[in-house]
């Protein structure tokens, strides 16, 4: 359940800002408005009349256009084709055919209005991330819509490009378009928005006029009050340096990354979506190439060109996207747990010791309190929190000394969150080194011994637990 009884109203000629932590349900709300998802209950009223956004076609026809967070462009097609997809201008009386010349000249006009220098005939796949975002915005702005929804539209843009976008939004606002603007960037919210709503854990935590509140109040609504005491953190003795990353760079992703993690330490990495934290984790894990810098484990330089090598030197990764990168959804709990450490199950005569696989899986199920009917059920039937624990068991079975958690509590409920936190503390106490990437600031503050903040592929701040607070993290991240 991603959303619970959310009420939201939107007036013509206003920019309504929607904020909320990752996983608060913002993107789900957008997709319901756009007809991509269907709500279980509740209704959408347009001009006071109920409308059912049965599919994207209907939503578009009702005047809703959306800039999605995960870019919705077709890489194999060019800029013009993408902007005018399903709205291609036609010519000819009898043979209605696409007017390509108009399509490209219109595309050029739209791009020029946004002051973007992109060739209308350039293939999307050849463009940079920032250019994708501009094309996506150009596409949404070019649709004659009454309701414009922008989901994190500026995450890849430069200050200059953001200026242009805001200028366009002000014009549209004067023309009476209702704009729903979703963002993490608190300072830009003030600049652009009229009213705001805060989503927290799928509920509307508050709506108001931006003029009447300060950012502190919005952050408080985003975070919630009772959040502090769910973190089981307590002081621990730390050991020697376990993992050292020196000056690591990957072209187009991140550069000059420099940090160390000690035994028993939990290092939090904070930052906005798009700060390239996941990419850094993947690079340390050997899943993305690096072009300079080095990684040391217990003082010894290592080369990790593949996840297999990373696993062998004791690095474990619990990816954010469980289905895509972390688990084999159709396979059993036991098979998932053993999947990164099959070398440990090899029998002398060849083949795998499947009996031992199940025994070890049972031990992990007990020690990590994984709720599952047996170790033989398919992993996809487990809840998100329990899947997270299975990923952890997998990393532990492969004898990881350094465990990287990427958004460890995304999309799981508070109870399961606490379980995951407790396991993290247990691991740290047992001498493991933990890197925790999280977009949830309370989680970062509550769990980390030390905090790195990343911003556009660089480390923008390093804070000790004592000196860290929300404000400092946000300042370094924005």
């Amino acid at each position, binding site marked *: 359940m991603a959303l619970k009884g959310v009420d939201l109203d939107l007036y013509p000629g206003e920019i309504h800002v929607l904020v909320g932590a990752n996983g608060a349900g913002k993107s789900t709300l957008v997709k319901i408005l756009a007809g991509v998802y269907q709500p279980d209950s509740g209704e959408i009223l347009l001009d006071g009349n109920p409308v059912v956004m049965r599919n994207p076609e209907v939503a578009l026809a009702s005047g809703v256009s959306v800039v999605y967070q995960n870019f919705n*462009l077709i*890489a194999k097609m060019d800029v013009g*084709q993408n902007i005018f*997809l*399903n709205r291609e201008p036609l010519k000819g009386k009898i043979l209605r*055919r*696409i007017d390509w010349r108009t399509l490209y000249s219109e595309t050029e006009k739209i791009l020029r209005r946004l002051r973007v220098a992109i060739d209308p005939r350039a293939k999307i796949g050849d463009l940079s*991330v920032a250019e994708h975002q501009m094309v996506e915005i150009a596409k949404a702005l070019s649709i004659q819509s009454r309701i414009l929804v922008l989901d994190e539209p500026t995450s890849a843009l430069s200050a200059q490009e953001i200026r242009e976008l805001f200028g366009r939004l002000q014009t549209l606002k004067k023309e009476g378009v209702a704009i729903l603007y979703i963002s993490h960037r608190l300072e830009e919210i003030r600049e652009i928005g009229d009213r705001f709503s805060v989503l927290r854990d799928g509920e509307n935590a508050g709506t108001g006029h931006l003029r009447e509140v300060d950012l502190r109040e919005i952050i408080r609504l985003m975070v919630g009050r009772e959040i502090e005491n769910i973190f089981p953190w307590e002081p621990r003795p730390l050991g020697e340096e376990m993992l050292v990353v020196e000056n690591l760079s990957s072209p187009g992703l991140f550069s000059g990354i420099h940090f160390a993690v000690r035994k028993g330490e939990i290092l939090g990495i904070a930052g906005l979506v798009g700060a390239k934290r996941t990419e850094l984790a993947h690079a340390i894990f050997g899943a993305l190439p690096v072009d300079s810098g080095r990684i040391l484990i217990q003082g010894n330089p290592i080369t990790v060109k593949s996840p297999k090598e990373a696993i062998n030197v004791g690095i474990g990764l619990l990816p954010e996207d469980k289905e*895509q990168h972390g688990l084999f959804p159709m396979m059993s709990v036991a098979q998932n747990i053993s999947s990164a450490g099959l070398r440990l199950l090899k029998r002398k005569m060849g083949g795998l010791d499947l009996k031992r696989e199940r025994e070890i899986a049972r031990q992990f199920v007990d020690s990590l309190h994984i709720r599952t009917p047996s170790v033989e059920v398919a992993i996809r039937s487990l809840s998100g929190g329990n899947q997270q624990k299975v990923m952890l068991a997998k990393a532990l079975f492969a004898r990881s000394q350094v465990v990287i958690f990427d958004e460890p509590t995304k999309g799981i409920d508070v109870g399961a969150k606490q379980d995951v936190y407790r396991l993290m503390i247990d691991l740290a106490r047992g001498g493991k080194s933990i890197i925790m990437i999280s977009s949830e600031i309370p989680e970062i503050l509550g769990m980390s011994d030390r905090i790195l903040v990343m911003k556009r592929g660089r480390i923008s701040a390093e804070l000790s637990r004592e000196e860290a607070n929300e404000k400092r993290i946000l300042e370094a991240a924005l």
Partner: protein
Amino acid sequence: MNPEGVPVHSIQAQGKFSGWHARWDRYGILVIFFVLLVLASIGAPHFLSFSNFLNVLQTMSFVLFVALGQTLVILSGGMDLSHGSLVSLSCMATAAVVAAGHPWLGLLAGLSVGAFCGLINGILIGIVRLNAIIATLGMLYISGGLALYFTDGKSISGIDVNKVQGFHFLAEGKLFHIPFVIYLALFFLVLTHFLLRHTRFGNHVYALGGNEAVAEIAGINFSRMKIVIFVLSGLSCGMAGALLTARMLTGEPQVGAGTFLLESIGAVVVGGNDIFGGVGNVGRTAIGLMILHFLGNALNLMGISTFSQQVVVGVVVLLFCYFGLARRR
């Protein structure tokens, strides 16, 4: 953070396809085709003659229809495995009606059977949302079985050429010394090209093949598109089946098995269309098919057995796949 977003390497790929790369990407296939023609002219006796070329092109034309249908399907991100049997079934349906004395109704029967089976494919894929390969594999069996079932596996013969001359002309007649079926194939080639390049439908075929989810979010109706695409694909088989009957004046229950399915996919691949959809055109398919047919013809003329020919053709297909992939990496 953004798993569905931009693959990392696309940033580095910027400007990679400029100059010679881009040109080779576009016209390389033509160069290869002409090199093949020159080599064959030197190596194979009697290859370089007007009548030989016309022969090859005539035989090829029948396959071109299904290859055009297959191009539509593959560009939209699917694959139609039912082609082989659909051609056979359409051929049998046409023959049955023509033998009863109604040649033009027979043509209509062949087309209808193809379109109907295509409609079933389209419903299974577009509405039930079965995987295209699985749905059309089922149809391959079903229609293949039906083609054999009604006559107990026997051919339908007894069509009197004198009574169906107009119908026979479609496949065997000549206009200005060139087989009529070549004009027909050319017409449908141009028609399909127009459909793909100049209509919304065509543009949406590319969009579906490029990224299904994005196409749907743009409001493109997935079910309707898939149904139309597979009906057209089935229709292309109906056309080929009916024309085969017109040529042979018999109904052969296994005429499409083997070559038609293999060559319809083979032509698309060898021509350099993206097997995952989204990129390509019918010109590439036509050249791919010509490469397959002229190569086979040259090997024939050099006295190489049909069995070894198949090995050569297989190697050619793999080579083209390899270079096609390497190009896109």
